C-alpha cells in the first residue's frame, strides 16, 4: 500500500512524515516523530490518554488518522512547558501529588490546559465533566481536580 506524505506542525515545529492510510495520528506521533508523551490506553477514544490539540481543539489522537493531520497545527504534552519553565498545571500536579503511575497524566494535562484556555474559572463540576473523557485508575481524581482548580485560581491571580 502506498504511503501518504503529511506536512504538519507539532508544538510549533514543522514536520513531515509518510504514513500508512490506516495509521492513526497517535501512531504517527509515537512511532514516526518519537513523541511518546501521548499514550494509547484504549485505541477507541474512551480513555483520553492520547489527548492532543489539533488547531486548538482537544482530540483523541487515536481517533484521527495521521493523514488527516496534514496542514494542521498539533500540540502535545511535550510542548506544554516553556523551555525549562513548567506550565503552572505541570508544577501544580507535581506539588499536589496529582499523579501516581503517570500514564494518564499527559492526556489530563493537555485536556486541563485546553479547559483553562477556554474557561479561566471553572467550577468543580465543570472540571469533572471536562475531564470525564480522561480515565485515571490510580487517584480517584481527587488530587487531580484540586490541582486543576488551584492552578486556575493561581493563574487568575497572576493575570
Amino acid at each position, binding site marked *: 500500500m502506498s504511503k501518504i506524505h503529511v506536512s504538519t506542525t507539532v508544538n510549533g515545529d514543522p514536520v513531515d512524515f509518510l504514513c500508512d492510510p490506516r495509521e492513526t495520528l497517535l501512531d504517527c506521533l509515537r512511532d514516526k516523530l518519537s513523541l511518546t*508523551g501521548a*499514550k*494509547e*490506553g484504549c485505541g*477507541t477514544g*474512551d480513555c483520553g490518554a492520547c489527548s492532543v490539540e489539533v488547531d486548538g481543539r482537544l482530540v483523541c489522537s487515536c481517533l484521527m488518522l495521521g493523514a488527516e493531520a496534514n496542514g494542521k497545527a498539533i500540540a502535545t504534552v511535550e510542548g506544554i512547558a516553556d523551555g525549562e519553565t513548567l506550565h503552572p498545571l505541570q508544577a501544580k500536579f507535581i506539588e499536589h*501529588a496529582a499523579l501516581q503511575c503517570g500514564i494518564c497524566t499527559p492526556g489530563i494535562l493537555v485536556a486541563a490546559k485546553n479547559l483553562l484556555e477556554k474557561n479561566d474559572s471553572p467550577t468543580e463540576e465543570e472540571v469533572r465533566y471536562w475531564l470525564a473523557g480522561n480515565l485515571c485508575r490510580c487517584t*480517584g481524581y481527587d*488530587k487531580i481536580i484540586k490541582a486543576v482548580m488551584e492552578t486556575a485560581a493561581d493563574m487568575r491571580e497572576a493575570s
Partner: protein
Amino acid sequence: MALDNDLKKDGFTFVGTRPDRPDGLDKVTGRAKFGADMVAPGMLHGAVLRSPHAHARIKGIDTSKAEALEGVKAVVTRADFPNVVQHKPGLAGEMWNVMENVMAGEKALYDGHAVAAVAATSALIARDAVKLIEVDYEVLPHVTDVDEAMAADAPVIREGSADKSVPEGMHPNVVRYHESGHGDVEAGFAEADLVMEQTYKTEATHQGYIEPHACLGMLGSDGKGELWCTTQGHFFFQKVCAALLDLEASQLRVTASEIGGGFGGKTTVFLEPVALALSRKTNRPVKMVMSRSDVFRATGPTASASMDVKIGMTKDGTITAAQGIFRLQGGAFPGAPADMSAMCAFAPYDLQNVRQVGYDVIANRPKQAAYRAPGAPMSAFAAESVIDEMCNKLGLDPIEVRLKNAAKEGTKASYGPTYEAIGQVACLEAAKAHPHYAAPLKPGQGRGVASGFWFNHGGETSVSLALSEDGTAQISVGTPDIGGSRASMALMAAEVLGIPYENIRVTIADTATLGYNDVSHGSRVTYASGLATIKAARDAVEKLKGRAAAQWGIDPEAVTWEDGFAKPSGPNAGDFEPLHITKITAKMGRTGGPISGHFEATPEGAGVSFGTHIVDAEVDPETGKTSIIRYTVIQDAGKAIHPAYVEGQFQGGAAQGIGWALNEEYIYGDDGRLQNSIFLDYRIPVASDLPMIDTVIVEVPNPGHPYGVRGVGETGIVPPLAAVANAVSNAAGVRLKELPMSPPKILKALKEQSDT
C-alpha cells in the same frame, strides 16, 4: 528473621513530609518511558492470534500463509516453547499453568487465549499476518459462571487440576479447598437472638490499569537476552521467562519500565515469553503491545464469587458466631483467592466461634490475576452487608456494633494467628468522631459503613545504597515504583543518613545489578523495601562512623551519627570536631575505598491493616442510578512516610471499589465470549462520577518495621463494595446482594419491592 527492637515512633525530620516526587518532572512532560515507549535498532513488531472460542480443542494450526506474507519474519506457536519445562527441576505446577496461559497447548481454554504469534517489520503487517493463520478448532462445551461450573453436569475444563485439599465427590472443576476457623459455630448460633444467612454474588472486574501490557524482548541463539517490560516484578519475570524458554535466569537481564498502573494485574507474564520466543527465532528485538481488548479478554481480571454468609448476634450487638462459604471462579487455572476471601471475611472482629470455607473453581475465562487485596473485597461485601442488615433489624448503630466486636491486640484472628498492635478500634473511633458520620442526610440519601482487612506482605528484598564523593546517595531497589515508592525510600534514607531528601536518588535497578526482589505486591514495598533501605543506610552509616573513628584514632563504638555528622561520644565526647558526611566521602577513596550499604532479607513483620469507610449515596428511583455524594476513608498506615501518597492509595482504592460496586463487570454471552472488552462498555469511574474522597490516616505503629510502617496499597479496596451497598440499602430501602448495583438491577429491586 529476627528484627531489631528499635521502633522509632517520633522525632522524624523527613519522614511524614510531602516533598515532590523524583519522577514528577518526567511524568508531567511526557518523557517518562513506559512499556510501549521503548524502541531498539532493527526492531520487529509482534502480534498475537487469540482464540474466538471459550473452549476448543486445537486440532491443527496452519501458519504457511502468514509466513508467506512480505515482511513477516517468524511465527510461533506452542511448539516453539520447550516441552521440557514441566520436568525442569524446581518448576512447580504453577509454572506449567503460566506456560499454558501464555500460549495454548492442546486446548484453547477461554475467549482470548493466545494460540499463535507473529513478528513482522511493522505492527500493521504483524496484525495482517495474524489474520492469515488458520486454526482448526473442535469447539467444546464451556462454562463461565462459578455456580454452574460446580454443578454436576458442568463440562470438565481441565481434568486432573484438583489437588488433594479438595474433598471427595466434588466436581473436577473444584481445584482447591480451604477451611479455617475456631470455636463451635453451631453453639454460637444457638446463643444468638438473631441469626441471618444470605447469599451474595460478585462479578469479575478488571484491574483496569490505563497502560496495556507491553514489552521489548531480545534473545539470541546464545541464550543471552534482554527484556524491557511494564511489570510489578521484573525479577519474577526473569525467573518465569527463563523457565518457559529454558534459559539460565542470570543470562536474561530484565529492566522494568515506568509502570502505568498494575494493581496486581502486572504480577505475571503474558507477552514477554512470546516476544522472547519470536526474538530467538529471528535474532532481532521484538516489541509487543496489547490492545485494550486483548487486555480485557486475556489478562487477569479478578475472580467472580458466589458466597453464603451466616451470622448470629445478640440484641446488644455481640456477634456470637460467623460462618462464610466462598466459591470463587478464577478462570481456567487454579489460583482463585478463595482462601483469601475466607480468611479476610471476619478478620476485623474478635469472634469466639468462626468458620470459613473456600472453593477455588475453574471455568472458561481468562486466568485471574491478583487485584488489590485479592479475594478480600468480595467476602467483605458479603460479611459487612449481613452485619449492616442485622444492625438495622436490631436498631443498633453500625459503628458501635463493629466497635463492640472489634479485633484488638491479643485477639485470636479468624484465620488463626494472634494479633499484635492493630488499628481496627482506632479506625472505628476515628470514623465515629468524623464530622461525616454526624452530617445530616437529605431525603433519598443513605449512609453506609463497612470495615475491611488485609494481611500485607514482606517478601524477598534486596537494597543497595552507594555514597558519592560529594556526600549524596544513590539507592538501588528492586521493586517497581507503583505508588511513589522512590520518594518514600528517599525519605527513609534521608532520615537515617541525615542528608536532605533531594540529595538522594532512588533507581529501580535491573535484574543484573541487584539481588532478587519479590514483586511489588501485597502492599509490601514501603514496608519491605523501606525496611531494607533503612538497614542499608544504617550499614553505610556504620562504615562512615568507622572512617571517622580511624581518622580520630578512637574506637568505632565511641562514634555516634547525628544529622549527617559523625560525633565522638562517651569518653571521647567533645575531643574532636564533628565530621560531616561530605568530609568523610570526599576522601573515602584514600581511607578504605567506596562506601556502600546493603541489606538483604525476607522480612516477616508486615503488620496487618484495617480500614473503615463511610459513604453517602443517593439513588434515583426513576433511573436506578446511584450517585456517591460523600466518601470518607479511614485507614491505619502504621506510619505514613509520604502522607500525600498514602492518601492517594486510600482514594484510588475507594474509587476502584466504587466502580466494582456500581458499574464494573465482565459480561459473557451464551457463546462464552466477552461482550464488553473496551472501556466504553466496561465502564470504570470517571471524574464526573465521583465526589472528593476525604481521608483520615490513622497511625498505629507496626512493631515489625523500624519506623512503624504498614502497607497501605490494598486495604482501601476492601470496604467500599459493602459500604456502598449499605448506603444504597439505606437510601433506597432495597438490599442488593449481587454486584454490580447497576441501574437495571436497582430498578428491578425497586420494582420487586413495590410489587410486594
